[in-house]
């Protein structure tokens, strides 16, 4: 049953050093406030899972929280590189990060399979790609009906998932609306889950088939206003595309990145800027 906690307390309680962590939100509703809290609490040796690492994992990797990264597209969307990710992979700064690289289709299926309680996801994937030659987590099964060879990847089953959503009601039921990505899957696949929300409301006012996650399937809910900034929350605030472009300059070199971290995370209160 969801417990209402401060973001500090939720992260302190559920995100352990060395844990496997998924922070999801496909472009939309990226849990920046939660990610910043993880950095602020100097969690380390994390295995980070995310389809699109985006700025949030660039920040976590640059801050030294990550030991491994499981992902499928690691760029700054529409802008270019994630420089902190590249610096870790290419030069081992602040330390080497081991990467397990997939396609989106495989990651999406792996989240789906994790939510479905299965050990593997099966897909018609990776045909002709060289990714299987560098990722030993990609295997194959044979269909017992047709003999077709299909790709298999381990399901995603994080120790803890962190996602951001628009709102929760007072029982802790959560509404996710708009681009819903793999948020529901991330929550259901995880051992523990933390959901940050823009606000708590009396009534979710959701349609009959809306993406509502019951409070009893969530461990902690924390209010984090603008918790997805500089990504966006449909119905609340738009994506700050300008910040995404500025990040290219901030993150390109180590010193300005460190200065940004100090100012915006370590020496900032508890709320994402």
């Amino acid at each position, binding site marked *: 049953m969801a417990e209402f906690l401060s973001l500090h307390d939720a992260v302190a309680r559920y995100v352990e050093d060395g844990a496997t962590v998924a922070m999801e939100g496909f472009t939309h509703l990226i849990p920046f406030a939660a990610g910043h809290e993880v950095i602020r609490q100097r969690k380390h040796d994390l295995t980070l899972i995310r389809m699109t690492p985006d700025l949030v994992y660039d920040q976590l990797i640059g801050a030294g929280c990550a030991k491994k990264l499981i992902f499928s*597209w690691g760029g700054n969307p529409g802008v270019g590189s994630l420089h902190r990710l590249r610096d870790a992979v290419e030069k081992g700064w602040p330390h080497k990060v081991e990467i397990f690289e997939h*396609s*989106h*289709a495989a990651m*999406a*299926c792996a*989240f789906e399979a994790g939510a479905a309680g299965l050990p593997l996801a099966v897909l018609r994937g990776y045909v*002709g790609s060289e990714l299987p030659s560098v990722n030993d987590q990609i295997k194959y099964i044979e269909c017992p009906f047709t003999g077709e060879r299909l790709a298999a990847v381990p399901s995603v089953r994080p120790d803890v998932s962190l996602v951001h959503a628009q709102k929760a009601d007072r029982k802790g039921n959560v509404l996710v609306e708009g681009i*819903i990505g793999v948020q529901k899957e991330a929550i259901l696949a995880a051992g523990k889950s933390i959901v940050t929300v823009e606000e708590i409301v009396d009534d979710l006012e959701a349609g009959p088939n809306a993406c509502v996650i019951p409070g009893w399937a969530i461990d902690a809910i924390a209010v984090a206003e603008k918790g997805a900034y500089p990504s966006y929350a449909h119905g609340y605030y738009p994506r700050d595309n*300008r910040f995404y472009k500025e990040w290219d300059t901030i993150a390109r070199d180590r010193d300005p990145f460190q200065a940004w971290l100090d100012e915006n995370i370590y020496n900032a209160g508890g709320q994402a800027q």
Partner: protein
Amino acid sequence: MSNEYTSSEMMTVTAAKALENGMTCFVGIGLPSEAANLARLTHAPDVVLIYESGTLQTKPDVLPLSIGDGELCESALTTVSVPEMFRYWLQGGKIDVGFLGTAQIDRYCNLNTTLIGDYQAPKVRLPGGGGAPEIATCAGEVFITLKHSKRTFVDQVDFITTLGFGRDGKARDGVPNIGRGPTRVITDLCVMKPDPETRELVVVSLHPGVTAEQVQDATGWEIRFAEQLDTTPMPSANELDVLRDLKARTERKHAGEA
């Protein structure tokens, strides 16, 4: 109305024309997105644009910066989860054409968006595969658009992120349930198609004012030219107007957000 246009505009307009009205198109971000939306705003109003963020049949007023900008969802017929997008709509065979960009391409249309150098010790780490590996095999066919240069058109891609026709041109042969693969590549210099037999890329039309020599100079292997080498039609004034309006709206939108 102006008769002048840049080579980038030529590329986008030509890429847009590849899309037919009514096609369902799985759209990659960047150049493909620009071309696909131009098609929708000109000759193909009923082209169905699908982005991997889950937005089905979307009609953005400005170009998205990311694959999941709010605009895409707000103007979509509906938005599904990302697993559903990849399972039901892409793998389920509902996509006529996948429209991709790339960092590197070789003579057999293999695409590399993973890295330059060696995987274990990369010289340049690129973003990775994203949706492309399965878009390229599950969509009915694939269009590719990118700028022409020796850096992008290489003899052998450093890594096959996404299958064209393999290192030998035969990697799709006999594979069950696979799409036709790349059927055209559109650059700022020319249009190429794979040879029906060998699958090697062949230049089939040069953009107005471009020479075969220019194309060869910008290509990292000895590229073939079709015996009947066409000249790509010029952009119309209307196409240029619509494209420029779209880009101007987009600039204003993205600059104005804080």
